[in-house]
C-alpha cells in the first residue's frame, strides 16, 4: 500500500467513524427547554371564608359578584319564625374586580347602618413547600356608615368623619395535604364604635384587634365544610350588641364559576368593620342564625 492509498483509506475511516457516530446520535435534536407552567397557589378555593377573607385571589379581570344574607331571628324562634328564615335579614351586596392576579379591589354594601366598605386585597408571597404550602396576603380598607341607627348620633351628618372606619387584615393560609386548609387572619379595626365623637362624653377613638381563624376541609371537588372563629385579642369590645366573638360553621359547594355557602352563625353582621367589632349572641347560648353567601365569577376581558 502506497502513501496515497493509505491516505485515502485513512480519510475514509475517519468519515466512516464520523458516520457511525452520527448514526448513533438521536435523529431529533428537540428537547423541552421550559418546565411546565406553575400556576399560582390557591389554597382555599374561594377568596372568602364565611366572614373572613382568604389569601386566594381572582384571575386578572375576573369580576366577582357577591350576595350574602344573615337571618336576624335565630333558630330558637322555632317553627313560628321558620327557624329564623321569616326574617328580617341583614344582607350584603358586593362587587370585586381583579386588577391583576395578585390584586383584588372590592366594594360592598350592607343594609345594617347602610355600611359601605371598600377593600383591597394583595397576595404578596407564595411558599411552594411540598409539606405545607403557604400563601400570604394583606387586606386593607375602609367603611362608611352612611345611616347609623344609634340614638346618640341621630343628628350627626352622614358624612361626619366619625362615621368612617378603617381596617387591616394580614392573611396567612397554609394547607396540610390537599384537603385541609387553615387560615389565620389577625385583624385590626380602627374606630370600632362609631358612636364616639364630639357629641358624646367620651371622644376617644376606639379600636380592636381580633385573630380570625378559618379551617376548611375539602370533602370532594364539589363539597367542603368550614368553620370560622374570630376571638378578641385586644382593644375595645363594649359596643352594645357586639360584645361577643363571632363563630360560624357550614358547608360550601363550588362549581365552575360559583361558590355557595350555607352556614349557622352567632353573627348577624356582614361587612368587615361590623363583624370585627363583635356580635351579640354568646356562643354559650347555643343559639344560631342561618346565613348564606353566593358568589359568581364573571369576566370582562374583551378578548374572551
Amino acid at each position, binding site marked *: 500500500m502506497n502513501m496515497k492509498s493509505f491516505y485515502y483509506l485513512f480519510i475514509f475511516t475517519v468519515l466512516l467513524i464520523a458516520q457511525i457516530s452520527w448514526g448513533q446520535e438521536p435523529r431529533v435534536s428537540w428537547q423541552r427547554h421550559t418546565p411546565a407552567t406553575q400556576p399560582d397557589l390557591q389554597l382555599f378555593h374561594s377568596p372568602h371564608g364565611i366572614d373572613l377573607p382568604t389569601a386566594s385571589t381572582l384571575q386578572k379581570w*375576573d369580576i366577582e359578584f357577591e350576595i350574602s344574607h344573615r337571618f336576624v331571628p335565630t333558630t330558637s324562634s322555632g317553627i313560628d319564625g321558620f327557624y329564623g328564615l321569616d326574617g328580617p335579614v341583614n344582607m350584603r351586596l358586593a362587587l370585586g374586580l381583579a386588577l391583576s392576579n395578585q390584586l383584588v379591589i372590592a366594594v360592598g354594601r350592607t343594609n345594617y347602618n347602610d355600611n359601605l366598605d371598600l377593600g383591597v386585597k394583595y397576595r404578596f408571597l407564595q411558599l411552594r413547600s411540598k409539606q405545607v404550602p403557604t400563601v400570604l396576603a394583606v387586606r386593607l380598607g375602609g367603611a362608611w356608615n352612611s345611616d347609623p341607627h344609634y340614638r346618640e348620633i341621630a343628628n350627626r351628618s352622614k358624612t361626619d368623619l366619625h362615621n368612617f372606619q378603617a381596617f387591616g387584615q394580614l392573611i396567612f393560609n397554609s394547607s396540610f395535604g390537599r384537603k385541609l386548609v387553615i387560615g389565620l387572619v389577625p385583624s385590626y379595626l380602627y374606630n370600632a364604635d362609631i358612636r364616639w365623637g364630639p357629641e358624646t362624653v367620651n371622644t376617644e377613638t376606639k379600636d380592636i384587634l381580633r385573630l380570625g381563624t378559618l379551617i376548611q376541609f375539602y370533602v370532594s371537588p364539589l363539597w367542603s365544610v368550614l368553620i370560622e372563629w374570630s376571638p378578641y385579642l385586644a382593644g375595645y369590645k363594649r359596643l352594645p350588641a357586639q360584645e361577643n366573638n363571632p363563630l360560624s360553621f357550614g358547608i360550601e359547594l363550588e362549581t*365552575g364559576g360559583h361558590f355557595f355557602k350555607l352556614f349557622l352563625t352567632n353573627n348577624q353582621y356582614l361587612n368587615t368593620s361590623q363583624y370585627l367589632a363583635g356580635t351579640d349572641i354568646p356562643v354559650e347560648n347555643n343559639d344560631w342564625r342561618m346565613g348564606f353567601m353566593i358568589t359568581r365569577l364573571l369576566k370582562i376581558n374583551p378578548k374572551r
Partner: protein
Amino acid sequence: MRMIFHLLLLLFFIYTGLTAEYQVDKSQKNLVKFISDAPLESFEGVTDKIDGYLFFEGDNLLQNSELYFEVDLNSLDTGIGLRNTHMRENYLETSNFPFTHFTGKLIHLEKTSENSYQAKAQGKMFIHGVEKEMIIDGVLMQVDDGFRIQAKFITPLSEYKIKIPKIMFFKLDENIQVEVDFYVKRVEKP
C-alpha cells in the same frame, strides 16, 4: 480507489444533508384551543404553550417521518381563574400530568394547492396518564422556512379516565373539541 472514495464522500454528505427537523416556532402566534359545548354553558380553554417537532428524511414528508407535539396544560386559560383551577386540579390533574402530547408519524399527504397539503397523522395521544391510538386529519401549509399546521379533533374525556360529576351544576362536555394552529420552522442540527 479515488473514485470509490469520492463516491463514499458524496453519499455521506447527501445522507447527512437530507434529513429535516422542524420545531415549533415560539415566536409565532400559536394557538391550542379546547372547546366544551355543554347544554348549560360553552367555554373555551386556550394556550399558546405548544412545543415539539416534525422530522422526516429526504424531501418527502412521509419518509421515516416522526412527530411529537406537547401542550403545557397548566397554561390553559378558560377565561375564569376558578374554572382553570378546577380543570387543572379536579379533571386534568396537572400536578401529575402537566403535559399532554401526541407522538406519531405522517401517513398520508395530498397536495391541495401550491403550498398546502391535506395531511393525516397516526400516533398516540397522551392525556391524563392514558395513551390512545389516534388518527388526526390536518392541513400543512408551507411558509417561509417551515410549515403552518392546523388540525381539529375530538377527545372523549371518558376514554382518558376523566370523570365528570353527574350533577346539574357542572357544565363540562364529555366530548372536548380540540383545535390547533401553530408554526414549525426548520432547525439545523447543532
